[in-house]
């Protein structure tokens, strides 16, 4: 088989190149991070940084804070998201599609923009706060701290639960519902004992997703936390360096963060393994009419929830057209904020965002397709370890990846800090696990015999891959890619560590403006960002020709 052996070697070469890339851009930085955390500045092995962390409640408290608020967010997201998904999947709601699309938009926006908008609404000088105080003499209490983070993150993440659960409910076969009714189990009892029990794997998957994203979210607690400091904020503070450019303590914190997320990840895997079954409905559940008082309450619940979640985005767009000087919005409307934005690197931000997004996305798609092909069609120890390696970033908070890359490539021979290259690397590493999952799932559904048919018709292996395999994967990859694009555009947690004035993005410009108290400017940047994500998602729905989103 001289000919096919040569082809096999091409794929072996691809495997090796990918492995080397992962070793250089993932394993080496992680190793550097670990090393930085246990080797002191004078080259001695020490656990001093870890004992420093565990000896002060100021530090350990941040873990407790993070855990508390993240668990609360996960629980509230489930409590908000499961009912809306249930109503949406089992009843004919009026304007159901609008509800779904708005929910997706909410979940895709940058979290800190939501936080910022809520400050404008409910903060010390927020419109709603002032309105309630002056007219009704009601004090709404402080939005800062635990409550604020819980509010903003729950409203941001319940749509994730909604999207996940909708997928699960759709796979419940109607005959299962009828069978349980036959055996006398209906109504609420059936909801808990059949519907939710059947959806348990998805509930757990959604919980993990919400937990990981909420735990790693940096923007929201940074803006809203004030005294309530969470772990990612602590990492960022330490990286900024109270004692100069010594990253040792920050590195130790990053290692602890990975440990925490890894424990949660494996706990979730263990929990999921107890519900190992899959469903595929031959007869999907037929949606019932939502009538009477119950139907009215359902509609009210769904509309009010989505309206509250979507309000911040609309409010930001409204604010962006208001006159503003510094942190104070004045009466009247103008394009002043946008004019200020143009002066403040708007063009550069948009250019960088576009270049970063396109470049990262291209790299992500190529690598994801190759890895999916290697894993599904040429399974081997080497290829499976590449796959496992590529999944590692899934459990790494963005700030940790940013920090690791900074330590690895901040000095010669790879002085990449502040370049677009290092940001591309960070974004590729961050988003790759998701795209690989969807590419692998797509390829698994493509029967091997289609490729064999092409080969038996005289097509070479390369031609078969490019003309048959890749086009058939295209739909699955493309829809995943647009979601990755949105995630890349709204990325904050790793970029904040890696960016500088030259590689500034739209998201970073927004954040900087908020941080400096240029609220009008921030609103303009945020509004542009919101429009970009909205347009991307509309394209996504047009391309995938469905209202479904798989994350």
């Amino acid at each position, binding site marked *: *088989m*001289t*000919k*096919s052996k040569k082809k096999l070697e091409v794929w072996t070469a691809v495997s090796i190149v990918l492995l080397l890339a992962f070793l250089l851009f993932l394993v080496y930085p992680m190793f550097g991070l670990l090393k930085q955390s246990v080797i002191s500045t004078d080259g001695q092995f020490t656990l001093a940084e870890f004992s420093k962390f565990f000896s002060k409640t100021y530090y350990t408290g941040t873990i407790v804070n993070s855990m508390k608020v993240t668990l609360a967010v996960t629980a509230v997201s489930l409590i908000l998201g499961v009912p809306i998904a249930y109503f949406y999947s089992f009843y004919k709601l009026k304007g159901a599609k609008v509800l779904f699309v708005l929910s997706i938009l909410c979940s895709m926006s940058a979290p800190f923009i939501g936080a910022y908008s809520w400050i404008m609404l409910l903060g010390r000088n927020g419109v709603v706060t002032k309105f309630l105080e002056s007219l009704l003499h009601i004090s709404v209490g402080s939005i800062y701290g635990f409550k604020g983070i819980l509010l903003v993150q729950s409203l941001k993440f319940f749509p994730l639960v909604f999207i996940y659960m909708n997928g699960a409910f759709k796979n419940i076969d109607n005959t299962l519902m009828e069978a349980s009714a036959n055996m006398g189990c209906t109504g609420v009892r059936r909801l808990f004992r059949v519907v939710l029990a059947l959806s348990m794997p998805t509930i757990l998957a959604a919980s993990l997703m919400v937990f990981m994203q909420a735990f790693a979210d940096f923007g929201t607690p940074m803006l809203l936390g004030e005294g309530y400091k969470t772990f990612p904020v602590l990492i960022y503070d330490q990286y900024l360096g109270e004692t100069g450019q010594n990253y040792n303590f920050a590195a130790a914190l990053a290692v602890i963060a990975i440990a925490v997320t890894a424990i949660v990840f494996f706990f979730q895997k263990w929990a999921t393994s107890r519900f190992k079954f899959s469903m595929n409905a031959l007869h999907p559940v037929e949606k019932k009419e939502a009538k009477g008082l119950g139907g009215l309450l359902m509609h009210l619940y769904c509309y009010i929830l989505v309206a509250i979640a979507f309000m911040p985005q609309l409010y930001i767009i409204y604010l962006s057209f208001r006159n503003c000087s510094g942190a104070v919005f004045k009466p009247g409307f103008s394009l002043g904020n946008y004019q200020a934005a143009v002066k403040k690197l708007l063009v550069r931000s948009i250019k960088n965002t576009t270049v970063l997004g396109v470049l990262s996305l291209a790299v992500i798609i190529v690598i994801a397709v190759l890895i999916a092909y290697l894993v599904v069609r040429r399974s081997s120890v080497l290829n499976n370890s590449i796959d496992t390696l590529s999944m590692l970033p899934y459990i790494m908070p963005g700030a940790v990846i940013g920090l690791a890359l900074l330590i690895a490539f901040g000095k010669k021979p790879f002085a990449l800090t502040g370049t677009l290259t290092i940001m591309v690397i960070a974004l590729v590493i961050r988003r790759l696990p998701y795209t690989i999952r969807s590419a692998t799932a797509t390829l698994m559904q493509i*029967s091997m*015999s*289609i490729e*064999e*048919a*092409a*080969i*038996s*018709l*005289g*097509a*070479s*292996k390369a*031609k078969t891959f490019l003309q*048959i395999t890749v*086009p*058939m994967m*295209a739909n699955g990859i493309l829809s995943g890619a647009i979601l990755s694009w949105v995630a890349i555009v709204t990325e904050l947690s790793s970029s904040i560590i890696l960016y500088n004035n030259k590689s500034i993005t739209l998201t970073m410009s927004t954040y900087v403006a908020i941080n400096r108290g240029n609220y009008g400017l921030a609103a303009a940047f945020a509004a542009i960002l919101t429009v970009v994500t909205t347009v991307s998602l509309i394209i996504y729905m047009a391309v995938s020709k469905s209202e479904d989103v798989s994350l």
Partner: protein
Amino acid sequence: MSNNISIKHALKKYGENVIIPDLSLEIKEGEFFTLLGPSGCGKTTLLRMIAGFNSIEGGDFYFSDRRINDLDPAKRNIGMVFQNYAIFPHMTVRKNVEFGLKNKKLPKDEVAKQADKFMKLMHVDEYADRLPERLSGGQQQRVALARALCIEPDVLLFDEPLSNLDAKLRVEMRSVIKNIQHSVGITTVYVTHDQEEAMAVSDRIAVMNAGVIQHVGTPKNIYQRPANLFVSTFIGRSNVLAAKLAVENGETWVVMPSGYRAKMDHVQDQYRREQDIQLSVRPEEFQLNRDASAGGISATVDDCVFLGLMTHYFVHLESGEEVEIIQESSIDSIIQPGSQIKLTLNTEKVNVFTADGSANILTGVCNDCAAG
């Protein structure tokens, strides 16, 4: 153009797991040859070795005089039809059919002409510009067939092509396949687990079990004179009864435990001696006598099923063995369960195997013989 296929001492292993230990086979030029066997018997594995999708651990494969063991699957000039059709979903019917022709680097107008010819032949020309997802299973399989045929392959391979179709379409498509094969005359290897389908389409059938060919012959021969007990029970239904062979005055008799005797004239000379045997009787090879006092094997009717043309009787013998009998339905009343009856054998048709079931001891068995 067409080739004979010659397989010599083929060996297939997955790690230490031997799928096909040592298989030799001659498939004649222009022949419709079927590999038939239960799932896991290695028939698809063998087909994929011919196609080049499975590695060959030992032995030689020839298309005519060309050894193809090391030939790239893309260069074997094979037309293959798959169980799940394997139609490219992102290409129109025309693009699918033209795919193989374009790989041959034929001039453009010739590609179109050839594709048109075969789309017409398979009656899919009216769907030429449709995407396959809008075609039914039967139409998709016609497209697959047109695509495989239009490259004018040396060998045509079918991997259970009809098993995804419904029963009615299956019958229709198998005559389509058979007629097309006869008109183009390309050597064809066809894999199926459905014996009726195999009988309907094949010139010759190889019955496989556990990676070993049990019997190669015409459909008629493997049904009427199966080479061993496995073939006898796998092809059609057979009642297997323990009995003895007795030789008296130069005549050979089958003796049942109940004492019933039947003269067997066509036992091979080498087997004409006293021995334990296994008697294989198809349900239609029993003669049923309602008169319990007549001669024959005593039996009691347990159940009967009237199916119009035929009536099936489920009976048990004195020895306790359960037997199925099929009789043409008669106008008088059906024999009621519990009735005592007598059975005799149609000695011309029944088969007699050695006690271990490994060989048919009657004359007329034709396993891979020239007479076909």
